[in-house]
């Protein structure tokens, strides 16, 4: 039985397993380009993970719970996306980064002829890509209870609203896929630490004051 009362911690912990997986795929194929791709993902993790965690903590603080269900119920009337826009934007960025998707696809970059996955063919590639798509879908789905009021909505039942909202978040992420140049961590790291981390901290401060007050 999963400890649902700390669902957000579970989500965060399991998502970090992606770091290990991608790096091991890159390293394990014993080839230079995949190795570089694997290391790119570690650098990417260093850039996105802290802002991502602060965004999650902000939500947990606002709902005063680590349970996804509780968090969704806490948004009765006012969705978190409305009064935590910075946390939501950072969350979306970090979803792109954790699924190394679109502009954050440098670990499997075109310039490395496929980077970490370069040597994978057949079923290996299928499993890897399936895992990557699953990561993207799960992270999109998690945005619904975290920021978008969970199953709340008129007419339709809760599960249907959750599906619709997941679909919309996913559609946004898929749309952005080819529409931006890839972001390299040697340049993005500074922005992540100097802009994103302070921004999420300020957001958390604001939420903290509101919760106390």
């Amino acid at each position, binding site marked *: 039985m999963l400890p649902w009362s700390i669902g957000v911690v579970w989500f965060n912990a399991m998502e970090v397993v992606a770091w290990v997986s991608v790096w091991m795929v890159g390293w394990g194929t014993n080839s230079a*380009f995949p190795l570089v791709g694997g290391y790119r993902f570690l650098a990417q993790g260093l850039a996105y993970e802290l802002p991502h965690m602060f965004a999650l903590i902000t939500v947990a603080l606002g709902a005063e719970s680590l349970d996804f269900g509780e968090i969704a119920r806490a948004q009765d009337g006012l969705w978190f996306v409305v009064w935590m826009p910075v946390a939501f934007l950072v969350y979306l960025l970090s979803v792109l980064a954790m699924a190394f998707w679109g502009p954050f696809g440098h670990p499997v*970059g*075109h310039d490395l*002829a496929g980077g970490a996955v370069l040597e994978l063919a057949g079923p290996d590639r299928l499993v890897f890509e399936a895992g990557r798509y699953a990561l993207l879908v799960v992270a999109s789905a998690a945005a619904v209870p975290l920021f978008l009021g969970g199953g709340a909505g008129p007419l339709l039942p809760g599960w249907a609203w959750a599906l619709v909202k997941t679909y919309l978040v996913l559609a946004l992420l898929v749309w952005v896929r*080819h529409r931006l140049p890839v972001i390299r961590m040697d340049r993005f790291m500074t922005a992540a630490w100097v802009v994103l981390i302070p921004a999420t901290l300020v957001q958390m401060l604001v939420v903290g004051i509101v919760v106390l007050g």
Partner: protein
Amino acid sequence: MGLRERLVRFAAERPRSFVVATPGGAGARLVVEEELRRRGWRAVASPVGADVLVVCGEPGAELAQAIEVVWADVPGPRARVQVAAGVRREAVARALDGAAAELADVPRQWADAAERVAAGPWTPDDSGDEMSGHGGGHGGHEQGGHAAHGDMGGDGDGGHEHHMGAPGGVAMAERADDRDGLKLDVLHVPLGPVLSDWPAGLRVSLTLQGDVVQDAEVGVLGGAGDGVVEWGGLAVAHLDSIGRLLAVAGWAAAAERARILRDDVRAGVDRRVEVERFARQVGRSRTLRWMIRGLGVIDRAAVERYGLTGVAARYPGDVADRLAGRFVEARKALGGGADVELDDPAALLRVLPSLLVGAELAAARLIVASLDPDLAREPVHG
């Protein structure tokens, strides 16, 4: 129709292609890329992800060997297409149809697979393997002016980038001091000659620590053709280079747009307004500028020293400056501007190592793409 036939037909309907260009084969590559887009077949960046290998133009002996190595990396079911330098679209369409039929030919693919199983896995001491010819070039190399790297000579691995040391007797990476004074593994990794969105026939032998280039040696693997490329106008060549740089920069949508405009211009359609608009759109991208500014800076002194001509000389500066310069030149050419001096590929090859040393692998690829030497006009050396 049985389930199996249906599945095979479905799988072979839109195969993924890996396109290899040869020096002098650019004209064929343009035709192939246009035909692939018309069919909705995707071009992929790695032979491992491909079903069809398309070779454009006639490779020289050494380049042909490299292509054989790449062909060995294409997992089955697979098919191979060779098109001549001056090929017409109908011939390309026929060749691609043939490849699709070959992919759906189950007995033939089974036979191919059985043959490969019988040949056994690749081993480093396999004397019949083409790899030895590549890796051997690096043996014991030492560069003047890089005294700190003196202990890294004599590596045994290298060769094609897909085989950085298979299990079984390949030498371990050696170590040398890096720029921060730390001991780090040294890898010898060749970029090219067969790499997507890469100048045809170019091989840059990199000495890497991590993904930072410590040393770069440039070589050219020639084509077997007469080296005359029918670009169909200077604007086509510039748009092709722009598309390549944008693809390396990971901006797939813009790269595709550049290629569509390139093919339209080549077909004689008036695309002046669209190119202008596209140039503005790319110029507005802050993300792109953020990612490419400050890379591969060529100042006026370097232009003099290396005898550069063409875009690199007329638009001194970084990768972003050269990209903007190419757009200016493309628009000028579309407007019927006077003939301008072309790039001298030999001079670009001379300046390249100095730009690559100290760059990261991603930056190195962007720098090469921004210069994009057309090696069809370059006599083979190295």
